[in-house]
């Protein structure tokens, strides 16, 4: 008995909890962002969520050049490029403007639960609730499952936003505790997937099959990255994949946007997609029309 009542994993690394999220599932939601991701999507708009460990983020526009960080630093004094950074976090503690921030810290399940419950009164209508996103929540599977259990026991609607890359048994366990899965599809060709995203496609598709086999409620989400995910061939694959699975309720087309650019700069990373422009409305409508048979609802946006 004791074994069941003990939390699976009582803490994990979270890099943000965002309240009043309105595009991560139905209603008004609180989204919990897990740190760490197995994929390397070049368009990533949360690059600070890729690394599993806490890290320093610097927003240069907010920096007042007061030098407090240099004074406080234990290892990389005077080095603002972050490359030598030992991630001690002292600079963020003293930064007066909050330009330096330690992104990612350990949260207990109880902390997550009580943060999620803060907005409970707003969830009640239109099945609002909590969404676990990232990064990739399946990178911390036991913590994820514990969080899902905690929220579910409070009667909060649970959504899991996943790239689908993770251990099958953990995913299926998590799905049992999840009201809705937002399953992200990107490039549906094995070579392309491996080349652009740095991980194989097959385990993702097998996981999706497994969820469909469980009749899990699913919304497929496709980021529309011109030239990468909106090719005729890729769209045809999405159509084929989605058609016939009645538990796929909706396909959400997420137009590429350039938020990631400044965020990459903030963590001192290169951004490789500078030549891509966001798709036009017209183009988004065309894609929606192309996929209209894939699910009962195809929407632009979350």
């Amino acid at each position, binding site marked *: 008995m004791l074994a069941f009542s003990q939390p699976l994993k009582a803490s994990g690394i979270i890099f943000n909890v965002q309240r009043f999220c309105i595009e991560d599932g139905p209603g008004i939601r609180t989204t919990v962002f897990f740190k760490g991701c197995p994929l390397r999507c070049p368009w990533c708009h949360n690059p600070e969520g890729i690394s599993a460990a806490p890290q320093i983020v610097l927003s240069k526009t907010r920096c007042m050049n007061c030098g407090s960080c240099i004074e406080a630093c234990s290892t990389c004094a005077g080095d603002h490029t972050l490359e030598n950074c030992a991630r001690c976090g002292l600079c963020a503690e003293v930064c007066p403007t909050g330009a330096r921030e330690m992104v990612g810290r350990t949260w207990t399940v109880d902390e997550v639960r009580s943060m999620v419950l803060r907005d409970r009164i707003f969830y009640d209508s239109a099945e609002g609730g909590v969404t676990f996103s990232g990064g990739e929540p399946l990178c911390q599977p036991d913590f994820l499952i514990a969080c899902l259990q905690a929220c579910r026991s409070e009667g909060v609607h649970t959504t899991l936003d996943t790239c689908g890359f993770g251990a099958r048994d953990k995913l299926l366990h998590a799905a049992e505790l999840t009201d809705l899965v937002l399953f992200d599809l990107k490039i549906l060709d094995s070579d392309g997937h491996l080349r652009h995203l740095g991980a194989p496609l097959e385990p993702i598709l097998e996981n999706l099959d497994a969820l469909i086999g469980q009749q899990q409620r699913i919304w497929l989400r496709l980021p529309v990255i011109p030239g990468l995910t909106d090719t005729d061939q890729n769209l045809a694959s999405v159509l084929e994949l989605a058609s016939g699975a009645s538990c796929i309720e909706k396909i959400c087309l*997420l137009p590429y946007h350039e*938020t990631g650019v*400044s965020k990459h700069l903030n963590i001192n990373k290169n951004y490789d997609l500078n030549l891509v422009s966001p798709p036009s409305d017209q183009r988004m409508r065309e894609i929606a029309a192309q996929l209209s048979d894939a699910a009962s609802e195809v929407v632009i946006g979350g």
Partner: protein
Amino acid sequence: MNERTERLRQESLDAVPCISSERAELMTGFYEENHGKYATPVMRALAFEHLCRHKSLWLGDDELIVGERGPAPKATPTYPELTCHSLEDLRILNSRAKTWYRVPEQVISAYEKTVIPYWRGRTLRDRMFNLLPEQWQNSYDAGVFTEFMEQRAPGHTVLDGKIYSKGFIDFKADINQSRANLDFTTDINALDKAEQLNAMDISCDALMLYAQRYAELAEARAEAAATEKRRLELLQIAEICRRVPAHAPRNMWEALQYYWFCHIGVISELNGWDAFNPGHLDQHLLPFYEKDMAVSTLTENGARELLECFFVKFNNHPAPPKVGVTAAESGTYTDFANINLGGLLHDGSDGSNEITHLLLDIIDEMHLLQPSSNMQLSRKTPDNILDHTLRVVRKGYGFPSIFNADAVVEEQVRQGKTFADARAGGCSGCVEVGAFGKEAYILTGYFNLVKILELSLNDGIDPVTRTRLGPRTGTAANFETFDEFFAALNEQLKYQVDIKIRGNQIIEQLYAADMPAPFLSVLIDDCIVTARDYNEGGARYNNSFIQAVGIGSITDSLAAIKRLVFDDHTMQLNELVAILAGNFTGQDVLRQRLLHRMPKYGNDIEEADELMVRVFEAGFAAIDGRPNSKGGAYRIEMLPTTCHIYFGSVCGATPDGRNAGLPLSEGISPVQGADRNGPTAVLKSAAKMDHVRTGGTLLNMKFTPELLAGDEGINRLGQLVRSYFKMDGHHLQFNVVTAKQLRAAQAAPGEYRDLIVRVAGYSDYFCDLSEALQEEIITRTEHQGF
């Protein structure tokens, strides 16, 4: 709008606000001739009658509803018996950059030759300032509080449904009955009461006379009418003016015209605050609308036209001009007539109806500055009414504002009103709660919470004027604990509230004795039955409000003091006080830390919100339940109008990182830009205050149009509103910002830090986005939604 109402609306928008000396001259002439002949209430009533008999009448070419306070739209009278403008005041009104009123030469000369020579030294304001103690004057001069009644009369009230079933002939019968009930053998106040009733009686005749003059004017105009259609309209106007206000109205047109005569009567008798207000207009009009439609004497378009003509009349009446501090605390043409929609019926059932939708359409289509409008949203109000309201809100006019009708009832029942009276009540002015038609609920002045903080940090001395205003409660160096410091703050607070209330009592009693309002008293229960004037406690309920300003600023300041000085011991309180005195000169790092790294109200963080509650409770304890001089009690309100700007200008730098002279937080909103956890956190923080024990609170929120786009956006906003009201929040008002404002946000990001924009797939704070992304969003805003 049809062609007529389009034209009337445009004429109203184009009309130039100006000063008319007609009322001042009529009053001066009447007082010169009659002063000393009559008891004060009778004198006031006869002066009102003199005005109704002699004031010039305006009947615009296309009008269907008639009656203007001045000789033409936006020609604004003055009230020299209360406060007499000096020539300098008039010149300032004419030339000031904002909310100016043109002052014709003829007005200057009338003031110079007639008005000023008679009224100088005789106005209520002159007497008031002679009577108010020095201590009051010092606190007033330093900006601890303002005083509403120094230039304008108590008013703040709203009409209920009584005029829709009773004419003024019926009110005269009630007055006669009350007179008959007086017993001179046992009642030592019988003569006073008889004179009050005589005054009310004269006031009834005066308004009927005014309507009669309009009937005659309309008939005369009919003879010369350019078209047959207009001739018939004018004849109908004449018939209506002979019918109302003498008798109860029989149809919607008569009902609207009747209310409007009452409105003109109230705002001509005195310059009471918040003009006057029909209250639950949709509820009052429904029986007439249904009846007119059933017998086919009215179409929906006809009803729309009448209502639009009615709305234009409000817009023709800018607030009577003020000068000095009072102008700064409320610098606007708006006179705060605030029409209530929806709400509850007397039996507690849903009060919304088809006229609610009609009025929402009109509010949307006309979007006039006046009248203001609000939705009284009960848990019983259907979602389609909320949806319609939010679709208007989304247009970005900032109205209708939305009130929690259930909380509004609870607030009033706590004050001892019956459920039926509370449900027939609602909100007026900004957010004030009252029992319509039965209550004198008077705002007495704004109260500067941040100045109290300054006094407690400086041993009772105002650091800006360097005057001792409060008791010695200890210097900053002497406080050992935060609780000790808070006790000093509480003592300064109570001391200043006492000063304010002592002044209020003098002013209330002055108005009761010298400035009765017999016409208004006819309309408010139970003035006739008790034979007492509205200003003397004749209303069934009498609440006086003190409106606290700057709760966000004082909370954040206290949170910073507590954290830095008493919890972390990073610095001494007297060091901080010295830095504040220097307005953070050479202390930018500290100032940034105060701005960005301290707990802030509005983020659903206990560390800050607990202090907000503590300050609120201290204010509540100091104010609520204290007796006023009309048999009622004082209540606390949390609203600023524009006073947070004035109060900020008289306060030095504060521990929340605010520089000297900058605005304080407004209403119960967080300090501008201090809320960083999104709208749900703001609502959670604000709801920690116990709204039900206030007389009203004000919360403003700012959204971009994109966030509210589509049915989804309306649903989300509806969920926010309903959730806030589930937590007993009192009022919500939304700003929906445009690209132009986003540009302004780029130019001055510090003032827009709380601005939320939709980015793509998520929302973020506008000022946190890279410049390129900001540019991109601005472009998108102008051309498309997300």
